[in-house]
């Protein structure tokens, strides 16, 4: 409330036109001033004990409320606290879960299997029929899989 508003209310008070609510507002405004001029001090005296007590009560309560509101952490801070707490709980849980898992065997080493040389598989086809039929069958297979036969031929040459 500005000084002008206070003076307006004082004029209204002296004219007997203020409501009890306005007198309470005026008292609160005057109580918030540290050094009152003589005229305002006189008005403050005239406002009555009940109104002054009520105004003091309301002022103290509003000061406490504003103090407690300012000491409350902001929403962002609360959210950050929540997220960090959740992350910490997750990490602890993960650590415990990893501890419960069976440990890998320390002596296990990689030992590649050495394949023993096996005899080359004999073709299971072109074994029946006359020699001519067998030969024709063989030629047809060779035409169908030229690379395989090329490799086989190369292997035979190397051996």
């Amino acid at each position, binding site marked *: 409330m500005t000084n002008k508003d206070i003076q307006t209310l004082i004029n209204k008070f*002296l004219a*007997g036109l203020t409501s009890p609510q306005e007198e309470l507002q005026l008292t609160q405004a005057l109580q918030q001033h540290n050094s009152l001029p003589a005229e305002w001090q006189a008005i403050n*005296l005239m406002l009555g004990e009940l109104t002054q007590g009520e105004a003091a009560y309301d002022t103290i309560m509003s000061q406490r409320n504003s103090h407690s509101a300012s000491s409350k952490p902001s929403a962002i801070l609360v959210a950050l606290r929540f997220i960090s707490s959740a992350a910490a709980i997750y990490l602890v849980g993960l650590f415990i879960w990893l501890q419960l898992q069976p440990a890998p065997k320390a002596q296990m080493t990689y030992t590649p299997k050495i394949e023993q040389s096996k005899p080359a598989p004999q073709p299971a086809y072109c074994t029946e029929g006359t020699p001519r039929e067998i030969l024709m069958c063989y030629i047809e297979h060779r035409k169908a899989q030229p690379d395989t036969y090329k490799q086989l031929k190369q292997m035979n040459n190397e051996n």
Partner: protein
Amino acid sequence: MYMTRSQFEHIAAQLRQKVLKISTQFFSSRYDAEDAAQEAMEQLWRYCEHIDTDRNIEALAVRVAKNCCVSLYRHQQRQAPTANIDTLARNHQEPGASPQQLLEASDTQRLLNETLDLLKPRERQLFDMRAVMGLSTDEIASQTGIPKTSITAMVSAARKKVFTELIKRMKQ
């Protein structure tokens, strides 16, 4: 028509709850809240035969309770002018009044009483009804039977008289 003691006793339990709620909001200590509520109920009990039955007794009880809370709080502040553990824990310390301030308050109260004695009985009655009892113009009109416009004029005249006299004495 004024309230009787038996009428007050009939609503005392309900009023006490209201008063205790106000004091509990104010004090962190349950004992202090009970003390303030008890004081408020005692004051209402002493004053009840002057309360008009049409008046909102609950509103008056709330005002009296607030006054008692502030009085007890200030009394505690005077008792313990230095910060102790209790007051720090409450976290709402108000500077206690020094002996000089108390003396000044006593002087100003005496000054006001002397000034009010200069008013005519009717003016004094209306002034007190507004300032001390906290009645609105409508309530005064219903109690006294005086028209509202006359009440406003008489209250205004009384206030201006008191104001002028107070200024004169304060500047002496």
